[in-house]
């Protein structure tokens, strides 16, 4: 195909335009309001965070902050900032701007405090200046001071995951002037409809990133152009265009037809054929886990024997071989092996129908019936085709003597809702890490009591909370190893896969560095013809 470069502005050799197929438009380009991958991908190109991860890894490296240090007790962090950085609107980036952004998030009100709006703030900082929902905890954030061109952020307590959390695109530093000018905080009235009236997130995102927004035609295209006053290495591409194509097979066909030069989340079934046709496959390091989750509050999952029987009944290896790309591995615990805290000696539940049957017999549950949920209308790195996973597991369970009642719902909102309200006895789900900390995996699942999982052994909660607060790296590692063992003994679910999600690119696309946490920079990409 030849479609991609037509009409691009670039005459210079290094330039050109890359069209990238996305599954949807960004919800907003205001990082503080979004948590979905498609939005964050765009935010990443327009904005920058204080720190980021090393390319292709999870180690924290400087970005807008040149360097940083924390106080002894870990509650005060001083960031030394890059100099000479300008926002797209020409205003200066400085410590005041950093503090303005943190204070903005901290002071979110009303609908802004909704978990679906400021999810990552809640994940990392728990609460706000004035919590409107009593369920929210005390905020980790205390205040921010601009001192001699440095930004000092004070926390209410120590947090081991604070720094890695700051690499999230949700904590992108935006131009305070633009935030005001384009009414980023104008979410109409408290108690009225949550209308994002301002145009900051839709038409006027102003950050310091290597690209600035050129045009955004929802549903058609989102065009980013090189920011020529960028403080670092300027983008090699003239433009990046994100083109929304919701349908998976349609994305693949668009790449084959040359209408796009790349797309994310390639269906494993397509990998071989695409590679054979000369397309480049780029794999992200495995940084996810797919699992079958139980709600231990529901029968028969309150019975450990039943949980174990399920674990033995599932032929995880067969599924992974048949349905996942080469390189995917069977998961043994709820976090990927590359992360510290991964325990080498957790209890394992090998595939054995006999054992499963024996355990069922031991459990005392006659003719165990399982409501088994799977989502529709979704494809996730850890389950590219939930229906296939469901069918394979469902057949395994039936073979072991379970009666399976199939249940399904559209991913958003019905399925997630059913999961969160504890309605799903057994479910297919998974998790992709946001940042390189075990707390982002096991902590998210099991540190607090959640309706979705039902009651776990109490010590799991306390152990994970202690591990999160532990500032010493080595101690943390062993605490998490111990926790992982405990979790796999209790068996709140059966993790079954860590997979390497793949992107596909046309020939000639170079320099795309896949990242386990999807912190991927389009400005490094170049096109050769």
């Amino acid at each position, binding site marked *: 195909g030849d479609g991609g470069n037509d009409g691009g502005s670039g005459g210079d050799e290094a330039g050109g335009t890359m069209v990238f197929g996305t599954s949807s438009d960004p919800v907003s380009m205001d990082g503080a309001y979004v948590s979905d991958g498609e939005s964050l991908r765009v935010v990443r190109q327009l904005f920058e965070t204080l720190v980021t991860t090393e390319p292709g890894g999870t180690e924290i490296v400087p970005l807008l902050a040149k360097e940083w240090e924390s106080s002894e007790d870990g509650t005060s962090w001083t960031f030394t900032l890059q100099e000479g950085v300008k926002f797209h609107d020409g205003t200066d980036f400085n410590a005041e701007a950093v503090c303005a952004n943190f204070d903005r998030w901290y002071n979110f009100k009303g609908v802004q405090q909704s978990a679906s709006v400021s999810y990552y703030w809640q994940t990392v900082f728990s609460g706000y200046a004035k919590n409107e929902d009593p369920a929210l905890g005390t905020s980790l954030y205390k205040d921010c001071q601009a001192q001699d061109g440095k930004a000092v952020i004070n926390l209410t307590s120590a947090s081991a995951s604070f720094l890695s959390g700051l690499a999230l695109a949700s904590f992108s530093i935006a131009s305070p002037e633009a935030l005001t000018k384009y009414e980023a905080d104008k979410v109409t009235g408290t108690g009225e409809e949550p209308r994002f009236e301002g145009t900051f997130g839709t038409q006027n995102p102003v950050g310091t990133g290597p690209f600035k927004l050129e045009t955004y035609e929802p549903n058609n295209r989102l065009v980013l152009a090189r920011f020529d006053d960028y403080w670092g290495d300027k983008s090699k591409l003239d433009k990046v265009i994100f083109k929304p194509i919701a349908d998976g097979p349609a994305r693949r*066909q668009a790449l084959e037809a040359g209408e796009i030069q790349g797309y994310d989340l390639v269906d494993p*079934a397509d990998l*071989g054929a695409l590679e054979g046709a000369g397309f480049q496959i780029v794999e992200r390091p495995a940084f996810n886990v797919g699992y079958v989750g139980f709600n231990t509050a529901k029968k028969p999952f309150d019975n450990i024997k039943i949980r174990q029987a399920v674990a033995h009944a599932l032929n995880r290896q067969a599924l992974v071989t048949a349905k996942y790309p080469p390189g995917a591995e069977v998961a043994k615990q709820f976090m990927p092996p590359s992360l510290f805290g991964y325990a080498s000696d957790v209890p394992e539940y090998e595939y054995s129908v006999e054992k499963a049957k024996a355990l069922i017999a031991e459990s005392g549950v006659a003719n165990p019936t399982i409501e088994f949920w799977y989502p529709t209308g979704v494809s996730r790195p850890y389950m590219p085709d939930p*229906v296939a996973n469901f*069918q394979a597991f469902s057949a395994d369970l039936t073979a072991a003597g379970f009666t399976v009642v*199939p249940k399904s*719902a559209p991913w958003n909102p019905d399925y997630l809702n059913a999961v969160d309200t504890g309605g799903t006895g057994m479910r297919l789900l998974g998790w992709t890490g946001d940042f390189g900390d075990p707390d982002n995996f096991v902590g998210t699942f099991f540190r607090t009591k959640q309706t979705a999982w039902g009651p776990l052994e109490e010590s799991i909660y306390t152990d994970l909370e202690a591990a999160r607060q532990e500032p010493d790296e080595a101690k943390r590692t062993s605490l998490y190893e111990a926790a992982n063992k405990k979790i796999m003994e209790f068996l709140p679910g059966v993790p079954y896969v860590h997979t390497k999600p793949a992107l596909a690119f046309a020939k000639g696309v170079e320099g795309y560095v896949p990242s386990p946490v999807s912190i991927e920079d389009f400005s490094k990409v170049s096109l050769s013809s």
Partner: protein
Amino acid sequence: MSLSQGVEAVESADSSAAGPPEEAAGGLWRDAFRRLRHNPTAILGAALVTIFVLVAIFAPLLAPYDPKVADLSQIRPGDFPGPSREHLLGLDSQGRDELSRIIYGARYSLLIGVVSLAVGATLGVILGLIAGAFGGWVDSLVMRLVDIMLSIPGLLLAIGIAALLGRSLKSVMIAIAVVNVPVFARLLRGSMLAQRRSDYALAARSLGVTRSRIVLQHVFPNSLGPVIVQATLALATAIIDAAGLAFLGLGSPDPSIPEWGRMLAETNSLLATEPLLALWPGLAIVLSVLGFYLLGEALREALDPKLRR
């Protein structure tokens, strides 16, 4: 001239005019049926439909394997064993025998078609009957309701209903049924209005037959012709509609049910790598739909009053 002469004349005429015995007697439907038998289109359609129904009935005898038993061991991403001697149509993405699934699929597709049609047509006919029988404001009311239903695109209506009722085969059938309701209601009502104005209805009135009896005994049965034709066609579209709903992720929550529409919908991502897997259910749908359509069109012709002597 005497009356007896007339009788004689007619009787003599009878004997000379009588055609071959098979054409001598029979009602309207028998007459239509006779015409169908001479129509190659109808025969082809009927043959297809018969095969379809037989396969559905005798699926357990015909299918070489259990359509739900999966064997993932031979499956790799994007690579499923194709047709072989053991599996004539190959294996599907879960390692199940495709042929057995196609054979069992006839059952489910027929089930969806028949149930949704039966429900939709019955409701539609009842509505149409009410409107056609009472006329006046009842008619207006029913017809406005029909207008409302018709002004929503059918698939959208079906999506809405399936969403309302939750995922199940039942809600797919109800959704398709509901989409059919206004079509049948309007059809029957129109045809009843025409029949009500006919001379034989007037004749019945002049005999003192009560209105309800005229409507139920005369007008209604005579208005059913177009409804029956439409039913054949609706049966065909129900199968396609079910495929569309499956494509959009609505359907039975048990994905191992071998229903053609769903099988086809699920192969959309395999079209490039495993086109055969899309071909089989596609072919099955096309042939069965073709059967119903041919039959329906032939029936339409056979019942067309203009083509009647």
